[in-house]
């Protein structure tokens, strides 16, 4: 009886392993890792907190449609690195927040919260163009220290990479995603001041700082 039970469990395990292998045979997994450089240029004169939610830090895009194989693309770690590096360098002070909206530091003027809206990709055989292409769309939210929304805007990032001899589809797609993430960082930095509400906020902070720097006498004569 014991032998029968052992034999059955071994057969069941074998069948289960075979099923798992068959099911995952057509699944592709891409783990995107990347280190990104800090932006070169002047910092915005703001004290900013940024909150990267767990969903953002562990973001995995899953696709399993009829006309495509199954794809699992994990961009969480890479986009966490990107936003930490870019947001950490583009303001006079940047503080990563482990929770939001609780326990905000006192000196925070703005809290930035990014969210992934969508990710799309195409393969060379689908477009008949010899490149892998990736689009990522981020919803960006900015709140004041009281939790009121100051602005929201969208960052659209695009990346492509040519097919390379002896390179897997996963590797090529990972490379295209890295290009798209660099593009997202570039748009985040260069496009920040193009958001009207944020432009006004930066301008008012700059005005306040220049007033503060002005000697008292000079301030009186200008008045």
């Amino acid at each position, binding site marked *: 009886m014991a032998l029968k039970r052992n034999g059955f469990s071994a057969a069941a395990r074998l069948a289960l392993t075979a099923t798992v292998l068959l099911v995952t045979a057509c699944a592709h997994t891409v783990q995107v890792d990347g280190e990104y450089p*800090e932006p070169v240029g002047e910092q915005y004169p703001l004290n900013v907190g940024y909150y990267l939610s767990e969903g953002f830090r562990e973001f995995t895009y899953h696709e399993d449609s009829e006309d495509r194989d199954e794809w699992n693309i994990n961009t969480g770690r890479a986009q966490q690195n990107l936003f930490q590096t870019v947001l950490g360098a583009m303001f006079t002070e940047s503080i990563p927040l482990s929770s939001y909206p609780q326990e905000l530091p006192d000196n925070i003027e703005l809290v930035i919260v990014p969210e992934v809206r969508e990710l799309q990709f195409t393969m060379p055989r689908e477009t008949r163009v010899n490149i892998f292409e990736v689009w990522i769309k981020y919803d960006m939210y900015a709140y004041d220290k009281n939790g009121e929304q100051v602005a929201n805007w969208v960052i659209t990032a695009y990346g492509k990479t040519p097919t390379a001899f002896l390179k897997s589809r996963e590797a090529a797609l990972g490379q295209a995603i890295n290009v798209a993430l660099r593009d997202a960082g570039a748009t985040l930095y260069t496009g920040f001041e193009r958001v009207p509400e944020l432009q006004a906020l930066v301008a008012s902070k700059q005005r306040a700082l220049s007033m503060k720097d002005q000697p008292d006498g000079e301030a009186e004569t200008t008045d």
Partner: protein
Amino acid sequence: MVKVFFVILVAAVTGCTTVVIDEYRRSDGELADGDSVVILGRRHSSDYETEPDLIDCVGRTLHNPDGGVTVISEQHFVDAMYPWFEPRTAPLHLKSLDRLMENSEVRKRLEAFGVKYIVWIDGSTETTASAGSIGCSIGTGGAGCFGFGTWDKESDYEASVWDFRDQELSGKLNADAKGTSYMPAIVIPIPLIARVQNNACKGMAAQLQQFLVPSQATKS
């Protein structure tokens, strides 16, 4: 003897490639000590991408500090100048570069690199035609392939040389390369590959060397 045989064998099994280089020069290159050259690929087109390995190949072939040419690698430069030389933000014209130089941090960093010339390479290598077929089979008696395949490749690259200090276009180079590869298979497939992109790279690097250091070209 073995070496000679090897060279003859390599020459025999390599497909033929023709390379045509055109040049338009507005001013002669003048690289002083400490000056460097950056070679960058254009990546803004939607239907092709200038291959990073082509840019790397031109840079490696051209880099010769003893001969007066110091090349900064593309990835190193683009990382150091992030985000101003990304596909979407890179200056497409000299006027845009001029505007970019209004950013003092960017200007300082470019000057620290000692950049004299920025060379933009735009183009790609594509397979234009292919024909033939090869079939392979495996059985208890062994395995083998039979058939014949052939394909044509074309490279078309244009290099624009920007003088960063004088803010002007110094000239343009064009490299067109064509080649046909063959693969006969009689039990074993024998690839006779035409190295089209590699030959375009070498031709362009040699011409850029003459362009940037004309004194070296007259000496040799």
